């Protein structure tokens, strides 16, 4: 035996014994660490779903700030109510109308980005083991929240027309027959993150029907609906059902994510609980940010700004599709009519997570498809976000991505591995 003495031991975490069981999946990951390179200017990041705020007129924000401080400065610097500023909620009514959604200011609550609304809803509805139905693939931030709540995440077949109502009914019934409680359907129906697909008008009605028949609450997350390129997407699901749908909106994509202002429109009973939960968690959403958004909406041509974004993102989408055709003709891609994302399907056998180190070498970043599944699928998928780099850099990024794919294909070919 070589071990003879009791050494002094440390694991650098004195509270390891005290964490809740659900904290066990919060580990540092090698993949996450690789993303550190995206902050370098040499790297073209097709990874983070960030708007191009360089296209936002900063003078307008400055004007809004000055106006806010001059007229409501003391209010902006003070605590606010848990439900959020009334004037902003009235303005949100007008924005939601653009998606065909009518709702009372009483049923709107302001949140710290719509991610916060999702966290509150998950906390309100999900016990460990409860089922959340989601698209395949689904938004990584939602998958993360549901996983943290120890929910069962059931991905439902999704194609270019959005989630399949038949598959939705089948999954819900199968889960129920297995004795599980099917609580929620989480959807990004317009230009979905990560797939870019839009749920058709016909399917919206069918999805509403499937969920209503089974008592499943729909969370409709709509950050991208106003960022359409050619034609506006169909009316929101919430436009047809005020009791069965909770609607989430955000200023992150149509204005700025740095402000962290989102909102939720919920049936009164749910809204009541959400406000109490919001107050319990954070007392009130940031008054300062709410006031700034409200002033901006008052003084600026915000619809014109959205049009600016739409035109810009359309150019970038076109650049991305053109580059894919040129450099990666074997790769299948979605062709979104709005939003930020393309969803790529790589040749069989490629694993997008495993080739990330090569991407770092080639100065390009992307998000591996597995991030958008709670069940390990997505290995040969990539989410490409075209919204943030310039159109020219989108092309450069995809050219580099092509090199990465080809290097990895060569490795696989060499080792004849799957």
């Amino acid at each position, binding site marked *: 035996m*070589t*071990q*003879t*003495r*009791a*050494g*002094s*031991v*440390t*694991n*650098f*975490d004195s509270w*390891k014994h005290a964490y809740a069981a659900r904290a066990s999946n919060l*580990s*540092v*990951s*090698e993949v*996450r*660490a*690789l993303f*550190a*390179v995206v902050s*370098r200017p*040499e*790297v073209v990041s097709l990874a983070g779903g960030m708007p191009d705020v360089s296209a936002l007129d900063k003078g307008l924000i400055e004007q809004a700030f000055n106006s806010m401080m001059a007229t409501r400065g003391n209010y902006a610097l003070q605590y606010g109510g848990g439900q959020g500023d009334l004037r902003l909620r009235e303005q949100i009514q007008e924005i939601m109308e653009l998606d065909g959604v009518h709702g009372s200011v009483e049923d709107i609550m302001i949140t710290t980005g719509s991610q916060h609304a999702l966290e509150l809803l998950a906390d309100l509805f999900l016990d460990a083991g409860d089922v959340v139905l989601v698209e395949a693939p689904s938004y990584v931030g939602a998958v993360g929240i549901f996983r943290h709540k120890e929910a069962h995440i059931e991905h439902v077949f999704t194609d270019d027309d959005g989630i399949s109502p038949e598959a939705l009914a089948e999954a819900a019934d199968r889960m129920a027959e297995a004795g599980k409680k099917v609580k929620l359907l989480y959807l990004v129906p317009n230009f979905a993150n990560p797939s870019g697909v839009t749920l058709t008008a016909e399917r919206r009605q069918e999805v509403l029907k499937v969920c209503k028949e089974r008592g499943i609450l729909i969370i409709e997350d709509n950050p991208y609906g106003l960022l359409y390129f050619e034609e506006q997407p169909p009316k929101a699901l919430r436009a047809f059902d005020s009791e069965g749908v909770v609607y989430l909106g955000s200023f992150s994509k149509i204005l700025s994510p740095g402000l962290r202002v989102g909102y939720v429109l919920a049936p009164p009973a749910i809204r009541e609980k959400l406000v109490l939960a919001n107050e319990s968690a954070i007392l009130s959403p940031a008054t300062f940010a709410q006031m700034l958004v409200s002033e901006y909406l008052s003084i600026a041509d915000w619809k014109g700004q959205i049009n600016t974004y739409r035109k810009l993102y359309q150019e970038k989408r076109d650049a991305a599709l053109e580059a894919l055709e040129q450099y990666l003709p074997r790769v299948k891609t979605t062709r979104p009519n709005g939003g930020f994302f393309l969803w790529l399907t790589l040749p069989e056998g490629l694993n997008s997570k*495993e*080739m*990330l*180190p*090569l991407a*770092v070498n080639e*100065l390009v970043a992307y998000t591996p498809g597995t991030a958008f599944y709670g069940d390990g699928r997505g290995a040969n998928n990539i989410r490409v976000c075209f919204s943030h780099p310039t159109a020219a850099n989108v092309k450069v990024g995809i050219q580099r991505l092509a090199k990465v794919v080809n290097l*990895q294909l060569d*490795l*696989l070919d*060499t*080792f*004849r*591995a799957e």
Partner: protein
Amino acid sequence: MPLSVLVLAGGISHERDVSMKSGRRVADALADAGAQVEVREPDADLIGHLIATRPDVVWSTLHGAVGEDGTIQSLLELAGIKFVGSDGHAAKLAWNKPTAKTILHRHGVQTPESITLPRSTFRELNAESVLAMVGTQLGFPLIVKPAESGSAQGVTKVESAAGFAKAMIDAFVYCDEVLIEKFISGTELAVSIVDLGFGARALPPVEVEPEGGSFGYSERYTPGETNYYVPSRLSPGVIERAIDVALTAHNALRLRHLSRVDLIVDEAGTPWFLEANVTPGMTETSLFPQAITADGSELSESYLSIAEAAARG
């Protein structure tokens, strides 16, 4: 005048995140000791900035290539700027694991039997037959690792022929040359060395016991996932042998100021050399700062002594 230190951190490498953390820790400790510290990324303006400001000393915490392969060191030498750590030539030899193993082997140090193969070999000679031969001759389990990389990135323990090809691919995405090493079962030991110009001195070795069995990226950088024993639970005689091997490695590779030598001590008490690090990690869970603390020293004073030694040249 306080010592002016420019800490380099970040860079474009697979270990950028670790480097940022290391750099900030070193900078904080040096500032606590009274040094005048600037933390900076290696970027397009770096050379001009160095020449214009000429700090007393540069402390590079750049992990991965450029930071550890001798590049940044050689540039600093050329610019006549003093820096913490090994010179460019020594760094290059230590960074390439197969080269370091060869040098240590020649100095009579045990190092696991291995073979290093470039990517091109597998294309030319048929990968299947090469792997079959290597597996038969070295025997499983094997450790497959990139010849040049850090933080256990791309490292796999291969238990049988079934996982061999996949492990090779996972290593080749980091580096075009892969080291395939016979697995030695035993205790992982890290020996940190400080060399202030009066001879290398080993700090108390740190014994590493990852809770999941392997000391991968997550186990290295997530507090709570690995137990570290200082002093090690190994017997004094074994520890002494391990220190001898580590000092031999530091001296044979002509390392300077600071290094960390990673060893495996087998059941018979024999230390096996795995690799030497010219830019050891300095994060909150890293082994080098643990060894300094175990030695009874303050990080701030120790880091300042190292920086002063480098400034003296």
